[in-house]
């Protein structure tokens, strides 16, 4: 497999009881690019993310990350390998401040534990220093530097989504999966978001986003993959998939409602 591919799936399948949510999907995500996965509701986009990040075990098929088999790697280990995601329903830590949320994102990049913490040993203080410096860096990246001490949930939804991205970025990923980052944002917030996503790409991090908002996708994505009822029905550049009859058919089903 070519070096430029960061994530690859072969015949990836997930079935919940009888219902097959993801059906023999073959993907290969180009490194350093912005890839969008689109598709009508219930197409299995989020399930795909959950498989890649290890929330669910796969039913069959393989996932390769940077050439290594990912299937049996526990979810919490994947972050330190460089895979991180955000959630459709933000999932911020409500019992922390904005800064602490990002600091917790440094978890896989720091190591001191209960013991060092309990006695505040030099190691603890040193790492804590680094953690907060880095956290502030990523907070500024998403432009929330001024809100560091606020309660995470006191922010408006738009900023909460940015914060979620900052928390994910703090883990220094190679690949970041964004689950409907645009949902519920107004136009200016969306512009802010796209700039941020391009920024991330510039940092050499591969971005995969699941998104309903077509203009946003078309503006950002260099490669678009279309899922429908668990299967990959098309992929290509934005303009290519837009013309694809299968895609139009799939979406027509939705436009009606």
């Amino acid at each position: 497999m070519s070096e430029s591919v960061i994530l690859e799936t072969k015949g990836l399948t997930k079935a919940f009881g009888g219902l097959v949510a993801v059906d023999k999907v073959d993907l290969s995500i180009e490194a350093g690019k912005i890839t969008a996965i689109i598709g009508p509701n219930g197409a299995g986009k989020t399930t795909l993310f959950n498989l890649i990040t290890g929330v669910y075990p796969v039913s069959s098929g393989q996932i390769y990350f940077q050439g290594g088999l990912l299937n049996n790697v526990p979810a919490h280990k994947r972050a330190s390998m460089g895979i991180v995601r955000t959630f459709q329903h933000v999932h911020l830590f409500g019992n922390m401040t904005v800064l602490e949320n990002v600091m917790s994102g440094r978890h896989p990049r720091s190591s001191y534990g209960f013991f060092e913490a309990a006695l505040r040993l030099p190691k603890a203080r040193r790492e804590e220093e680094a953690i907060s410096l880095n956290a502030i860096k990523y907070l500024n990246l998403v432009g929330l530097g001024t809100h560091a001490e606020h309660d995470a949930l006191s922010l408006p939804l738009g900023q909460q989504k940015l914060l979620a991205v900052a928390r994910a970025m703090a883990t220094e990923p190679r690949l970041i999966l964004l689950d409907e980052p645009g949902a519920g944002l107004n136009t200016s917030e969306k512009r802010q978001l796209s700039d941020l996503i391009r920024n991330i790409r510039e940092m050499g991090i591969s971005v995969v986003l699941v998104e309903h908002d077509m203009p946003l996708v078309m503006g950002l994505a260099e490669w678009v993959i279309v899922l429908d009822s668990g299967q990959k029905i098309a992929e290509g550049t934005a303009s290519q998939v837009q013309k694809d009859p299968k895609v139009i058919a799939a979406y027509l089903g939705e436009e009606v409602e």
Partner: protein
Amino acid sequence: MLAGLKSKWAYLAAAALLVFLILIPFDWFLGRYTTIMIFIGIHTIVTVGLCLLMGYTGQVSLGQAAFFGMGAYISAILSKTYDVNPWLAMLIAAVMTGAFAYIIGYPIFRLKGNYLAMATLGLGMIIYILFIQLAQFTGGPEGMSGIPYLSIGGFVFNTSFRRYFLVWFFCLAVLLISQNIVSSRAGRALRAVHGSESAAESIGINVTQFKVKVLVLSAVYASLAGSLFVHHLRFVSPQPFDFLASVKLVVMAVIGGLASIWGAIFGAGTTHILSDELLLRFGEWDVIIYGLILMLVMIFMPEGLFVKLKEVFERLRLRYRRRGAEP
């Protein structure tokens, strides 16, 4: 040295609290409360553990009295029956209790919420039954007396005045350690688990492992408290470690505000002062009134009395500020 204390006012407050605690046991001050304060200190240690487990990590335990009891019994048996040095016994007890917590941790944390509550309750009761039934070691329901006092060199902790300082030394140490932990990487991980387990996993936190670790920590605290408990009473019986004891501990934690380390003192304090001091004048009605207060507090301030009071204090301060601001 001590995290969380940011302003000089915080330091002054801490110092003031310390001075107050130091003066309490003197007869010319609040000496007559020494015994109650000893139990408050002991229960504070257990409660802090519960706060870390329940308030910060969001895991329920209705069996914490079992760890408390294990510490008590292991200390008692080793130091009395086998003449082990009490301090060493205390250490062994903590290690054994912690190990036990570690072993049960992994299976039990496959459960969540109410089912976790059921399982911990069941475990607690099993341990309690063992305290009664392993009579050849524990002395059975009658318990065992003749447990030695703790001592350093020639200095024996044989008066409640001395034990008061012993207990509160440990209590404050535990409070400081816990304060340091919650504001650390590990502490954030715990709070993350509480906030959203899936999000925690997604940023590389091993959720189950952290749950187990905090359970072990709380068990070690409880064990330490249990050891201090028996070396104060010099007598141990199963009754202080039954189901109701576990409930009392949870009550202390909740009243102190589950997610607040220093609230633990307040929780243990109010509970004891209420039932061992204020309610005594109500004679036979004490239990009834206790039940009533329990309900009222939980109904009208489910986030705990301590937190409520802090809110009120804040509000007053702000109003005062505003007045000051007005020309």
